[in-house]
């Protein structure tokens, strides 16, 4: 039985200056091929200015079960958001 191909995650920067965004994945046996396959599949309509590929096995993800522990603690730290603060009436450019 044929062994499975290596899966690579693809991140595309759509325009210079923007962040790379996850686009999907491709199969490829080596990194050069992964980059080329990503180009063929995910930039057929002018979507890209730069591509990153990384073997899927290297992605580490948080677990759904952990999501409360991971993300809820930041809920009550509203002082990290600019809207938390009261500015004097009439003040500008702040």
């Amino acid at each position, binding site marked *: 039985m*044929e*062994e*499975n*191909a*290596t*899966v690579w995650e693809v991140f595309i920067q759509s325009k210079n200056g923007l962040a790379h965004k996850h686009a*999907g*994945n*491709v*199969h490829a*046996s*080596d990194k050069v*091929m992964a980059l080329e396959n990503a180009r063929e*599949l995910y930039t*057929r*309509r002018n979507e890209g200015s730069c591509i990153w590929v990384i073997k899927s096995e290297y992605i580490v*993800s948080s*677990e*759904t079960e952990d999501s409360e522990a991971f993300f809820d603690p930041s809920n009550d730290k509203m002082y990290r958001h600019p809207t938390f603060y009261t500015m004097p009436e009439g003040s500008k450019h702040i």
Partner: protein
Amino acid sequence: MNEKYFQDRIDAEKKIEPKDWMPDDYRKHLIRQISQHAHSEIIGMQPEGNWITRAPSLRAKMILLAKVQDEAGHGLYLYSACETLGISREKLVRQLHEGKAKYSSIFNYPTLSWADMGAVGWLVDGAAIVNQVSLQRTSYGPYSRGMVKICKEESFHQRQGYEIMAEMAKGTAEQKAMAQDALNRFWWPSIMMFGPQDSDSPRTGNAMKWKIKRQTNDALRQDFIDKTVGQAEVIGLTIPDPDLKWNEVRQSYDFGEMNWDEFWSVVNGNGPCNKQRLAHHKKAHDQGKWVRDAAKAYAKKQELVAN
């Protein structure tokens, strides 16, 4: 507990993601549906691929090739979505070859003239788009995101088909006859693409409850027919259904009986091209094996050098 939490999330229109807990049957249903969808895109390349080398102008050649290429891309997006459920693309392809996985029966009909490229784009893609637009709201995150991307890219597919039909319908007498013939052959198989009537569709219950499917087969079919009838009129072609009639009360078209014997016969492997389509796919896959093996061997050697 899990089951209740899961259903609550579904009911609250939350997306289910790969790492979330899900009932086994939900996973199985998704694998079956997404892989069938992926295989349909891939097998669907063949009936249109059949005409790429014979396309009648440079423009037509490029459009058709780009469209069939999109189908390969869409198959790939869908295999990706399916892989997030813990099954490899290799295994999915094996299931296809072993006859354990199905693909849409529409692709078991032959494409016999250039007008069929019009009919396939206009009707088959048109029907697929109605279904896919609805599936953008499916509950499984990767499937939903795949659908969003596919719908965005497919918007030109139906238009290019309709353009071919429109051009041929106003062309020479021979061209118009070809266009009408293509419509005659593809109309009924296209509206049967939505699957059995709701009363005969055993899996619809769970699929609706889990919001994998968002609209029933019959609702989607009606939507497609209502959209398409006017388009046929505009280009002067006749839909081959004597019972087709506007129903003032329902604000929809009534239509004739579909031939379900033929539908099930094609689903069960007796369509004009079932064997041919699968043999074509297997052959390409088998003939590519030495290439895939070589690429893997090369990659291993490179890794050794790098380490």
